[in-house]
């Protein structure tokens, strides 16, 4: 996937689908243009604080219907790393229509 996640509708794998979802959420929370979010950059670079981080993990839990570690976005501080971890660790499968 291109690091700049503008191609929201082209997610073809679970990792990409989670990345697209996270980019959309981050853009909503921080009032950013999704095109400016690079999935390989630390989330803190975009101004994500502790409260945003735990809230985002909560939303992710609801979306994936999983119990996730609250420190997820500290342990895996980029969208790319978090998405890869979720797929590897929890064998997440996401339908593109869920996006």
């Amino acid at each position, binding site marked *: 996937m291109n690091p700049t996640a503008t191609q929201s509708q082209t997610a073809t794998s679970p990792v990409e689908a989670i990345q697209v979802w996270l980019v959309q959420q981050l853009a909503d929370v*921080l009032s950013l243009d999704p095109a400016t979010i690079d999935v390989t950059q630390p989330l*803190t670079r975009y*101004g994500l*604080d502790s*409260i945003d981080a*735990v809230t985002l993990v*909560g939303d992710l839990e609801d979306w994936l219907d999983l119990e996730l570690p609250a420190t997820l976005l500290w342990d895996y501080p980029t969208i790319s790393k978090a998405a890869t971890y979720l797929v590897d660790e929890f064998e997440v499968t996401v339908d593109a229509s869920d996006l």
Partner: protein
Amino acid sequence: MNFSEFSFWWVLLLFCVPFFTVRMVAKSFNLWRPAFDAVGLAAMSLILFLNASRASFIVFGVEILFNYFMVKWMLTKEGKQARLIAAAIIIFDVGVLAYFKYLTFFVEGVIGLGTTVPENWEAGFPLPVFNQIPPGVSFYTFQMVAFVVDSLKARRKKPIGLLDYVNFVSFFPQIVAGPIERRSALLPQISSFRFKFTAENWDWGLRWLSLGLFMKFVLADNIAPYIQMDQVANAWLVWFSAFLFTLRIYFDFAGYSFMALGIARVLGVKLTVNFLAPYTSQSINEFWRRWHVSLSTWFRDYVFLPLMGSRKSLAPAFLFVTFTLSGFWHGAAWNFIIWGAYHGALLLLLRYAGRPFNRFVGRYVARPQIVSWAMTFSAVVLGCLFFMETNSGRLVAKIKTLITPWAYSPSNFGELIARFEGGGGIVLLLSLGLAITFLLMEYWAVRQERPEYELFLHPWVSRALLGMTILFAANAPSEFIYFDF
């Protein structure tokens, strides 16, 4: 351990020379067992701790044994039983910390607010009352508590040997003032410990040690004598002293942490880098990611997240509570509580007002990051005023001065300049020049997205720092600030 005390290095030498001589000879006759290394490290740590404080050593010994056997028991249980044992251990550990650190404050500072406490209340108290906290108790208590929680959560409930546990909690470079290490980071390096005196470990260890020595003895200790605590009426002096304290506390504590990192690395153990150029931060959030990293993450993982649980909508309130508690950890006095609450409030202010403010500044200022940095650093300096002033009356007087416009008069400014004229002023000016150059080099590394201390760890720069430490170290080293915590 107090690395600035001669006795630390003397006891270390007195232990190391015979121990490593015997080790070398025994190895040549093939008589040395690898397990003896672990015994040697434990002996080294405990002897150094005993030398640092006998009273603290006894408390520490009791806590080690209690924690070890209770965790061992906990690991044989499942579910609710295991959680109950974990809770008992944590209550015991926190109780010991509270007894030694907070009892006097609780009686005189809290109960004393509402009622008159007799002056000799200690005499009638059923337990002995200590005026000084045992060195290291705040740090090793947190490391022990983290170990209990991490062991409870561990997927594999593998039992741990007593010797490995002793080495985990008493590892001498970091026991007294951190970094507060986690089970997952330190235990694998400490279990079945072997000394690894490789050329690489010596090289990197001495580089970190040189950096720490320079920060502590040249920067922190040369600035320390110019901090004037008793000046309350001159706003310029109050700000300037808070500014000097801001520099001092960073160079003092980061210097200590890097010395610990260097000594540990010589032995073959990699500790957490506890500071990441905090004064380059452009927001308070960023500051707390760079300042005392092992404590910040400890509070995040063992206070903020468990307190909040699934009540994520209350995250801002829990964040504020966590920061207030973090302030209280630093010391049993109101000023530390205020300092913690102040930082919690700053984080919330930044969250709710920071983004619109940044957009506003971005419209009118060509380089808004400079404004962000200046505001962040000023907020940290003001916070340091709360942190440094344990006398509540004087703290209130200083705050009143800061908000009084005529306290900023030109004559007061003249008084500030006059105070630092002469030879002392030149030393201060040179120390500030070195300190600011140091911070600019950190800024350069951060801006280049390189490791924060890369420049200072370059072999030639590292040697230059050691040379400068020999030449410019303060004649009278000051105490490590964090030893009081």
